């Protein structure tokens, strides 16, 4: 298929999937222009015209970038993110901008100023978040791959909920230049794919050191994995803390089946302990808001975006703009973040959370030092929950990320692989690898993938 034909086909699929509310911006002219641009660059790149949906917190010049926030409604970036440039260089096609929890803060994509995203298998359920729009589009077959972003599980968790592959690379593997900052020490551009191979191809295209991001690191390129014959010689750790007694039975069944498969393929499995796991969610909900409070200070209505309170004094303009421009969850996190950095509270919260982060990271390092090649865990404690179920209780919502946030704090690569279904809803198996061992992680996933029959009931 030519790139122009590919663009046309995507346009039709985007139109048909409108009810998901997964897309915030797309247009036929933009797609045509994109197809033209990419074919000029050369369609023989490794992505060869693959359409890729882009989470709307990654800046693009052709389409607006809103972060699903009123405060950036209509905002158009004058530059493209590094990952967008790299995607095009590899022959990838920017298909559309996808819906998300406002500024990527949320686990259900219900906190979007532009309406919630529907789960492709059950419109009453959430697709997970914050990259719910990207996950839903891949699951619905609109695009084979999509970019999301992770701060604390925002790709792996929706990937598990929607039954697609979600890959979070090591912190520093992919440039953050052009990813709208939420928690800068945690943020990673991450990838959804219908298959491990699609996700790996996109990751390989966007990865690599970028002189415009001081936290990006030089490393050998990511390889598109070739499935192994078996998993002989590899040792897998099962962290006991990730299998609590109240784990959803369907999730447990799905992961158990995957672990049995690993053993059947010759992999060695043994329990390990990551004792500081229980501090991951509280640590995350101190550090991420602290960084977010500073990162979101720039949305003040002065230079760009929406301005409210015209004619009032400066302070009132700030108040009106930010009070009306940000949604409740964003405001909550800004308040939390401001609080934990305040004089007199810094040591009790921010400094303590940093110390906890060091312990959490050390847990993983210790486990890998004992000869474990990768860790296997459930990606989420439950399958996709119903819309509205956790909106009234932020802490319940935060706990949806209980198995994904520690990895983010440690900056490790991790992947969620579809591992069957429970009562029709997808289950995700999480594979966690040591820092910058994406190749090992992807090859394990590619080896398991053909055996896992992702749509099979596991309970």
């Amino acid at each position, binding site marked *: 298929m030519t790139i122009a034909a590919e663009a046309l086909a995507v346009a039709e699929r985007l139109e048909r999937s409108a009810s998901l509310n997964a897309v915030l911006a797309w247009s036929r002219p933009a797609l045509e222009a994109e197809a033209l641009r990419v074919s000029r660059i050369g369609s023989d790149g490794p992505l060869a015209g693959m359409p890729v949906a882009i989470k709307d917190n990654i800046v693009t010049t052709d389409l607006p970038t809103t972060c699903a926030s009123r405060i950036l409604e209509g905002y158009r970036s004058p530059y493209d993110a590094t990952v967008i440039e790299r995607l095009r260089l590899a022959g990838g096609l920017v298909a559309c901008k996808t819906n998300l929890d406002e500024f990527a803060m949320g686990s259900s994509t219900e906190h979007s100023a532009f309406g919630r995203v529907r789960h492709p298998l059950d419109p009453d359920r959430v697709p997970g978040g914050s990259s719910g729009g990207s996950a839903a589009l891949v699951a619905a077959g609109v695009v084979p791959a999509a970019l999301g972003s992770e701060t604390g599980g925002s790709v792996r968790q929706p990937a598990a909920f929607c039954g697609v592959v979600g890959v979070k690379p090591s912190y520093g593997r992919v440039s953050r230049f052009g990813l709208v900052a939420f928690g800068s020490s945690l943020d990673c551009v991450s990838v959804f794919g219908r298959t491990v191979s699609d996700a790996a191809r996109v990751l390989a295209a966007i990865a690599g050191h970028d002189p415009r991001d*001081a936290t990006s690191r030089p490393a050998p390129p990511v390889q598109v994995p070739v499935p192994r014959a078996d998993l002989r010689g590899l040792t897998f750790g099962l962290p006991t803390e990730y299998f609590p007694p109240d784990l959803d039975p369907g999730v447990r069944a799905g992961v158990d089946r995957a672990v049995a498969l690993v053993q059947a393929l010759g992999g060695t499995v043994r329990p390990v302990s990551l004792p500081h796991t229980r501090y991951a969610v509280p640590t995350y909900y101190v550090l991420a808001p*602290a960084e977010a409070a500073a990162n979101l200070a720039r949305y003040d209505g002065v230079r760009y975006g929406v301005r409210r309170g015209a004619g009032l004094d400066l302070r009132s303009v*700030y108040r009106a703009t930010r009070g009306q421009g940000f949604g409740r969850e964003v405001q909550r996190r800004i308040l939390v973040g401001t609080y934990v950095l305040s004089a007199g509270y810094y040591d009790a919260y921010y400094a303590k959370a940093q110390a906890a982060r060091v312990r959490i990271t050390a847990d993983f390092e210790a486990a890998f030092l004992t000869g474990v090649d990768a860790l296997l865990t459930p990606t989420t404690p439950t399958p996709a929950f119903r819309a509205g179920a956790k909106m009234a209780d932020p802490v319940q919502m935060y706990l949806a990320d209980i198995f994904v946030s520690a990895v983010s704090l440690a900056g490790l690569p991790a992947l969620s692989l579809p591992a069957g279904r429970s009562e029709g809803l997808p289950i995700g198996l999480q594979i966690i690898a040591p820092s910058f061992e994406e190749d090992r992680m992807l090859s394990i996933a590619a080896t398991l993938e053909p055996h896992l029959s992702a749509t099979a009931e596991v309970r």
Partner: protein
Amino acid sequence: MTAWETVIGLEVHVQLATRSKLFCGCAATFGADPNRNVCPVCLGLPGALPVPNAVAVRLGARAALALGSTVHPVSVFARKNYFYPDLPKGYQISQFDRPLATGGEVRCESPDRGLVAIGVTRLHLEEDAGKLIHDWVPGRTAIDLNRAGVPLAEIVSEPDLRSPTEARAYLGVLKQVLVYTGVSECSMEKGSLRVDANISLRRPGGPLGTKTELKNMNSFANVERALEIERERQRTILDGGGRVEQVTLLFNADAGTVRPMRGKEESHDYRYFPDPDLPPVVLSRAWIDAARAELPELPEAKRSRFQSAHGLSPYDATVLSAERPVADYFEAVVRAGADPKTAANWVMGESMPGYNEVGAFAVSAVRLAGLIGLVKDGTVSHPAAKRVFGELGAGDEAPHAVATRLGLVQVRDDAQLGAWVTQVIAEHPAEVERFRTGEPKLLAFLVGQVMKKSRGKADPKAVSERLLTHLEAS
């Protein structure tokens, strides 16, 4: 009335002499049209990230080393959070609990205490904010972000200064060192040097009093003046049994007053925390040693070497070492063969007035040395050499050629001199007679006559010797 002791500390911000800003590639130059030198990074656009400018780090380290500070192998950029329209990101990237350097001192001459060493508390790097322009559009405030992200070093002194005059002396020496090392242009007019001053009064030896902070001084003289005014204000309050309030005061140079700052001045909690976009600045021992090795000879060292090696007076040594281009020029003249003391006189007397006016030397060091040589070997007289100097600036003609063209080369041709002397003796028999009968002052008259005949080209010393010989012989 018991005496009060004045305690002053200074916070000096200098713009580092980089081509680009601290965290992006935009030009850091002064004077561009508003909002020309901006990009997504320094505008704080969504998704943009800072990348540290290595040159700024090097200049900061160089400044620190020149002040004898300890440059730390690891320092950390932090976010200083506050809202203001001139601050695009809503935070300023600065350094807080882990600055680039700590310690060090500035030695300056105090009028009452002699040479004093003023401690340097710390030196850290930070980005500048933009500038608000009020009423550029009538009734509105415009924002120019050209300065946003310009690299600054903040140098904080210990409260070691004891008078406004000392504060001014400290600033003079600090500026000299920073200009010398190429760290900063240190121009208060262009905003590349700014001073905030803290001042309090206390009983000698007693605990520190409440301090106030002074801002908005646009020259070293105004820093001194503002401190004097504030010292008087605090003294009056304390003498009257009152208490000084901790406030920030703006100096008004026209009115000669200080008044409390409004608006921005609530007590701020800046909520500093390490900037997660920027890894710690890690400097190896070798890197720091190389930065130290790269330091030029500093003014103080140069001054004493000019005295010991070149035999200059303390005054001359001070004048000639005050600015690096002058010192370099002087030494180049000496290297080109001129006697140091003569070179010093020429540089101070002839070269510096032009330099002070236009900031450059019209006559190269080599040509000046050549001219000095012409005086020394008697080719031109000293007054004639000054005329030659005036002509030298214009082109690249050699000093000797200029002297020749102007007809200023002294005639030492014996025959010619002899002819002129004989003629003068013949033309002035009366004066010759008076000289011989005991009026020696007439020799000067006769020399003058010979000089006149030579149209100034004769060497007066040779003329006088020749005259004496003739007068005694005949």
